[in-house]
């Protein structure tokens, strides 16, 4: 079956611009996560959705970052007034979140964002 997909694979933008990054989770997965990975670092949690609602957005670095998941499937990460420090790989993951406590996350290939 299809895995997690993310578009675009690469995004180059100028400082101050607005960008949207899209994530298509695995069908049937209710949980969706966004991570940011800077060079030489591991993925860093940004936000978690259970269904349509953001259950935990404690990882968002500031109010320029926002994410939505209006129908409980596709999610969009939105970054306003981009800064050079936002340049990173943005990863999306989804999981069944069956409530069993064991919750393996499956990652997409990521979107490489470069802010010039």
């Amino acid at each position: 079956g299809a895995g997690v997909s993310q578009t675009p694979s690469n995004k180059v933008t100028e400082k101050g611009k607005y960008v949207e990054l899209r994530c298509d989770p695995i069908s049937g997965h209710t949980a969706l996560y966004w991570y940011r990975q800077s060079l030489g670092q591991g993925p860093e949690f940004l936000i978690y959705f259970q269904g349509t609602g953001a259950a935990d957005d404690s990882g968002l670095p500031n109010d320029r970052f926002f994410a939505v998941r209006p129908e409980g499937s596709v999610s969009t990460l939105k970054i306003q007034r981009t800064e050079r420090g936002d340049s990173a790989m943005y990863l999306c993951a989804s999981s069944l979140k069956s409530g069993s406590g064991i919750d393996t996350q499956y990652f997409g290939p990521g979107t490489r964002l470069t802010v010039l």
Partner: protein
Amino acid sequence: DQQVKQNSPSLSVQEGRISILNCDYTNSMFDYFLWYKKYPAEGPTFLISISSIKDKNEDGRFTVFLNKSAKHLSLHIVPSQPGDSAVYFCAASAMAGNQFYFGTGTSLTVIP
């Protein structure tokens, strides 16, 4: 503050030998641990996991060991194969929580 640490950024191993990748954590609330493997230009791929009620979990050539008292886990790959060359991340979470905390990764090179 890095709650999950992988202190070896890289490791080289001869094909057929054992690869041992290490990971330390600081948060005693963590009770679920995973290893992910990442190839260039791809997202991390789940490899193996272990919950804190166990001290070992094995899946084919991959075994994860958990030492709760030392807050340490390790991934053993035996025998190592060239296709195992990748970056390996360990991750941890508290089952009641939603966040997974990742280490900085270890780049494994298996030399043919």
